[in-house]
């Protein structure tokens, strides 16, 4: 009995100072960590080093190669796709064959060893984004992927959270070509989740 009484007296003493301060500290930590780790902070600007320093600023930028020349799946598949090494070699079997990076590429092509790019854009498994309707509605790749044609090293421009999707689906005008008849994108769950 006596022991219990002492505990609760101690507790009262604690409650005067330590408890409020502790609570505030815990709250501040939770909020601080939450704010600091908000997805946008880490997702946007993700710019990994790629195995081959392929420059989008050069190819689609300066040389004006259309996006879908390489990412040919975009109009007909859910995935835009990463070109096969073969596609690089279409040109690079004759162009810049002396560059060390192109030699690396040619060696991969010869050996059949897979070329492992670092993935930049990644959606959760339960989101079934489909490139087809977006590309076919005339939405530019840049709307989501940023000004890729200016990037020497590609980075993630949009955080690609559900709010990005819904924001545009609710008011797609800015992303569409002039004269498009589309007013809205679907907003129901099954449009993207299955």
């Amino acid at each position: 009995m006596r022991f219990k009484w002492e505990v609760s007296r101690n507790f009262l003493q604690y409650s005067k100072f330590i408890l409020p301060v502790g609570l505030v500290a815990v709250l501040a930590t939770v909020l601080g960590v939450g704010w600091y780790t908000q997805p946008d902070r880490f997702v946007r600007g993700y710019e990994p080093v790629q195995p081959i320093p392929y420059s989008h600023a050069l190819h689609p930028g300066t040389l004006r190669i259309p996006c879908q020349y390489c990412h040919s799946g975009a109009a007909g598949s859910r995935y835009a796709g990463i070109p096969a090494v073969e596609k690089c070699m279409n040109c690079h079997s004759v162009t810049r064959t002396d560059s060390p990076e192109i030699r690396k590429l040619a060696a991969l092509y010869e050996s059949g060893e897979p070329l492992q790019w670092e993935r930049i854009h990644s959606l959760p498994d339960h989101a079934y984004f489909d490139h087809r309707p977006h590309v076919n509605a005339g939405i530019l790749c840049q709307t989501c992927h940023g000004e890729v044609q200016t990037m020497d090293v590609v980075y993630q421009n949009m955080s690609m959270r559900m709010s990005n999707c819904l924001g545009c689906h609710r008011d797609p005008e800015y992303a569409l070509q002039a004269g498009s008849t589309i007013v809205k994108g679907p907003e129901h769950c099954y449009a993207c989740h299955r």
Partner: protein
Amino acid sequence: MRLPEGIDAISRRRFLSLLAASMALTAGSSCSRIDRGKIVPYTRKPARGIPGVSAFYASTFQEGLAIQGVLVRTREGRPIHLEGNPEHADSRGMLSLRATGDLLGLYDPDRLGLPVHKGVRSNWQDATKALNNVLSDARLMDKRVLLLTGASASPSLKALLYDLRLALPGLRHVAWEPAAPVAQLAAARALFGKPMISRPDLRRADVILSFQSDFLGVEPDAPVLINDFASRRGVSTPTDPMNRLWVVEGHMTLTGANADERIQARPSRMTSLAFALARLLHREHSLPLPAGLDPAELDYFDLDRVSAASSVKASTMRLLARDLVRAGQSGVVLAGAPLPMEAHAACHLLNFMLGSEKHIMDRAQPFDLAGNVELKEILEQAARGEFAVGIFWGANPAYAFPDPALWKRAINGIPETFRIGLYEDETALDCAWRLPEHHWLESWGDFESPGFIGIRQPVSGPLHNTRQAEDLLLACLRGMRIQTQSTYLEYLKARWRSGVYVPGMPVPFESFWNSALHDGGVRRDSAQQASLQLNPEPLRKALESVRAEADSGGLELVLAPAAGVHDGRYSNNGWLNELPDPVTKATWSNPLLISPADAERLGLKDEDVVTVSSGTATVDAPVLVQPGQASGVAGIALGYGRRTGNVALAIGANAYQLLKGLTGDSFVIRSARISRSNSRSAIPRTQDHHRMEGRDLARSWALAEYAKTVDGGKTHHAHTASLIPEQKFPGQKWGMAVDLSKCVGCSSCVIGCQSENNIPVVGPERVLMGREMHWIRIDRYYEGDQQSPSVRHQPMFCQQCDDAPCEIVCPVNATTHSPDGLNQMTYNRCVGTRYCSNNCPFKVRRFNFFDYTSTKKEPETLVFNPEVTVRPRGVMEKCTFCIQRIQDAKQNAKHEARQVRDGEITPACVAACPSGAIVFGDLNDPESAVSKVSKLDRHYRLLEELGIKPSVTYLADIANPVAAEDKA
């Protein structure tokens, strides 16, 4: 306990601060960039195929005597779903549920992945050398070689085996199937001179009489027969012609469950009943007997005598005879696979008398198949040491041959033994060399069906270090210095070039071959069949043997392959094990089915374990009281009680053993005994209650009743007032219609759905708790009295209610309504309160009580459909109408700037359904098939009085029993 030096130096405060620091560091480091993995493109892209877009390949499935064309959907080179190939002239797009389910077999982690010699890993070089050596030796020394395989209808394999026989004169090839209707083949061989399976054209049949034939269930051509049968069931007006199914059977089959008139009789009485019917047709309706058969020979089968012995009423037989005569050439009689040869002969006689023989014999497919009797002889030869080499390819005699002792002696009598198979199964364990073969989805082949030669092509590269068995045989030929092709593909093509391709065709052979690959084979005019001559001699013999036979009066036991695992070849397949049996709804087990009367007499109730014995063989199995089972008749499924395989092990009992004492190739044991033991064994069933308790859920009317009623005779509930604001569906509104008259309850849709929607297998313990995950269940109800009930089947899945009760109770908005009328389930929002499931009046929502999938590793994970989320633990799920297929069709339509066409979207269940009972489409389009079907006057919606407005319409089942005035 003393702490080590230094530990006590750390104060509590320091410990806590270290703890905090390490946690902060961990948190900090994990905040670095998320590892998103790699993207690995092709180095050289294959000529066709876009990543993310399904590619379809045609191939051919074979299981015993069944051959079906399949369309395999592949994604990035791996098969993910199987459906029927409509180009296949014989199977016409119908596919057995076991074919769909065998996709899981391709990715079975228990598959043998490399050659094994006496339990030690080996390699192909040694294996082929060993095989070559023993075969070359056998050739030189003129020794005998036993090659045991399963059934095959492959012309190229036949040619290859012929080549092999030329090279090896001592080769004895036996094709053996443990549960195939060998008696049927034997009857045809005796009567017509060639072994064949009779397949009636049920599209033309007005009256179908089945003697214990489960042609809607487990018999080889069931999918096509279901389609033919159902084509005459879906009446849209009461005057539409409808067929009538008479079933005479002892143990309750799926076919019996669908009968319009079901007669219970002991299987041993079937032959005399058939002969009595023949006599009746001849005497009272003057149908002619075939030439050479004296009517007096039938006199023993006097109606009164037979009806007294079989407890089938004479008046019923007269009714049946009258019905058959009325149908004439459109009357068809079928004998069941379990019945002995005499019964098959008797049914052929009946068909001859009716004149329907000419369209029943459409299927002139000769199979040379050995039964247990023939295999027994061969094994006795082997036991005497007559074979120097034994090659066991495919068939699994160590498990399925009824006499394990004889098998042991036989295998010990063969010095060199090779097993070619998918698994390290019972037979493999008895053989010295175990050679893994390709799964059929990794193999080449061709299969001859009436009117079509189907090609089997690999749809995936080999997953393991396996080889195609035919390639091994070719390697043996080459080892014997015989000039032949280097691969089976080359062999196949060479044979097609000379045998199938006609020189002078307007296309070169390569184009011909490629188009055959594309279509899954080539059509061939089925040679007009010469009219068959019935040889009366075997009939006379059958008559004599039936006359001589005495009714033992004992318990008769019928053995039939299981609906899921079949003859045991799919025992290691979780999908097929967990498929509820269409009649008993039992999963993961083969209970002994006994009649309610016998159960009462013996004091047995469900789940009591009994010992079944026949001769010296005994098997322990739990009892299941089966309404509608004839008294004195028990039934048990084959294919269980395997001794190998991580899934198959120790599930059910091996009923093959009971066949040990049998002298013929029938699957009926005439004097089985059952004795009760004191133990009980739970049977995992997906349905506990079998009556509708007066509610009108699965509606069924007799045709006559349907004719008399207006608007189906049932009042439709007016929509009652609702608190929920009315939903508007401006664009499409997806809906489904299920024709209960066409549905036979075969459960193909369950497996099709499971494969398409990544539905996990939960295992028998969880099924016992009611935690199975199937999105479709087939409710099966019994109406009427226990001893002879009528059976109803009703596919039940999410009804996509407009005013869905599940949606209003979800606290987190995880289940909501879509503008095209779907009740959406958003897994990522679900927190698992299960309120929705509690509020669902149809109980179609399924909850992931455990994490069933994340512990899976390759190759098991390869079976998943990448278009459907794999659900984690704690999440509710249910039928989505295959939203992935809807979305895909919508995107394709959008891409091509058009509307989605009616019939363009086929949910997996619709595609898997052989009867065409399920129709899917847009209810807002008045011209769509589903709109039209939903307006037929036998339509109704379930639990309409609740005001939930389901999007699924059911069409009442129409039965076609003999009219009451005819009975009188």
